[in-house]
């Protein structure tokens, strides 16, 4: 480790003032620099198994905040839609899990590793399977782009983070260190992601829904419905705090969803199946 630091230092000096007359003999500078980079990367990267353990810890916390809706048919239905959409993403083989939270707040969450939750409060604002698909696809996009992992890394000392994740895996979750990591992770959900991450998830969400064969306008339709609600309703508070303004999100989708989506407008929205699956009968 010390050697590597010295090499790194030497690289730095070398780069900054090439005139310094040290004789480093036959050192391969390019290779040394690569080694430094590799070591740093290994210390800060969270691999997939670590990501899944971390995500399950956060999911367990979210479920501590709001319980799972006690309705097997609805849970199964949301998993079928979500898993189909995840299969259209760049990470089709994560252990994807979808769940409806028994909470009247209007919100949806995803954790690293592929856990996605939506509240019954948000579900109750929807009018079709394509709308559900749009919201789930937005959450899937966060997982695909590892937005939460990156936000957690930004907030924690990277080195510490990976050590904790490794410890956690070794001890199969019984580790108090994992609790620390997970609680750091859970804070991201109270604080929110960067607004550009949200815009990206919107842009990717409409595409993932379209790839799944759905009417791609489901997500913007949900955003418009939320726009129609009373903004001072406390059930919207956290969602509003942690996301960019609905008007801004819709405006960006308006700019992006032009020609490319004209041919996809006739894709089904499966509104009837949505209401049947939720036990609400035919519309």
């Amino acid at each position, binding site marked *: 480790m010390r050697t590597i630091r010295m090499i790194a230092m030497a690289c730095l000096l070398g780069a900054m003032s090439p005139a310094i007359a040290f004789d480093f003999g036959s050192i391969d500078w390019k290779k040394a620099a690569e080694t430094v980079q590799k070591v740093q990367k290994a210390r800060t990267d969270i691999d997939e198994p670590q990501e899944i353990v971390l995500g399950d810890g956060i999911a367990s916390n979210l479920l501590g905040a709001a319980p799972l809706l006690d309705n097997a048919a609805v849970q199964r239905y949301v998993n079928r839609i979500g898993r189909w959409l995840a299969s259209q993403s760049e990470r089709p083989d994560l252990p994807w899990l979808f769940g409806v939270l028994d909470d009247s707040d209007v919100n949806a969450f995803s954790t690293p590793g592929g856990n996605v939750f939506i509240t019954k409060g948000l579900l109750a604002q929807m009018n079709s399977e394509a709308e559900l698909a749009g919201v789930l696809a937005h959450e899937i996009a966060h997982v695909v782009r590892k937005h939460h992992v990156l936000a957690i890394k930004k907030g924690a000392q990277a080195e510490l983070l990976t050590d904790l994740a490794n410890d956690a895996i070794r001890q199969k979750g019984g580790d108090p260190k994992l609790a620390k990591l997970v609680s750091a992770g859970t804070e991201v959900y109270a604080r929110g992601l960067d607004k550009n991450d949200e815009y990206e998830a919107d842009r990717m969400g409409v595409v993932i829904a379209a790839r799944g064969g759905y009417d791609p306008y489901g997500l913007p339709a949900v955003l418009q419905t939320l726009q*129609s609600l009373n903004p001072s309703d406390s059930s919207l508070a956290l969602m509003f705090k942690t996301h960019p303004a609905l008007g801004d999100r819709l405006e960006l989708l308006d700019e992006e969803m032009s020609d490319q989506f004209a041919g996809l407008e006739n894709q089904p929205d499966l509104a009837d199946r949505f209401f049947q699956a939720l036990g609400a009968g035919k519309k």
Partner: protein
Amino acid sequence: MRRLFAFCVLFGFASAVWAADFARTIRATELKAQPYSDAKTLESVPARSRVEILKRQSGWTRVKTATASGWVKMLSLRVEAGTGARRGDSGLGALFNVASTGKSGSTVTTGVRGLSEEQLTNAQPDPKALQAAKRYAVSKQEAQRYAAEGKLQAKSVDYLSGGR
């Protein structure tokens, strides 16, 4: 209305109020006879016109202007906040907020489950609930079967550029 009622029953919402939704056009927009671009134009709707929302179909919304009904592009509308509240605040949220800002401070809400910022930060993990949730997970194959049942067809669509 029946749908809404069913939702209220399903999710236990005590009451629901239906009101018409209104929106303003964010730019000058053509009112079309049918929900597609080359349909007949009924009239031109100036920017910032107030219209009543009648229904939505994919990227189009059927609206009523002062003089006619027809279709405009859904994303050319900014929906008015608050006018179409389908359910009001249950009252519980307000109650908790009052409690949490009272003299005894934030500790009041500790232990009350919920998805407020504070409740999330103080949540106690529930690994059993996660295990229970995992029992509902489905395989890729099952998801594919269900998609086929709904006549959904996967297709290749490129991601949007994000203005870059």
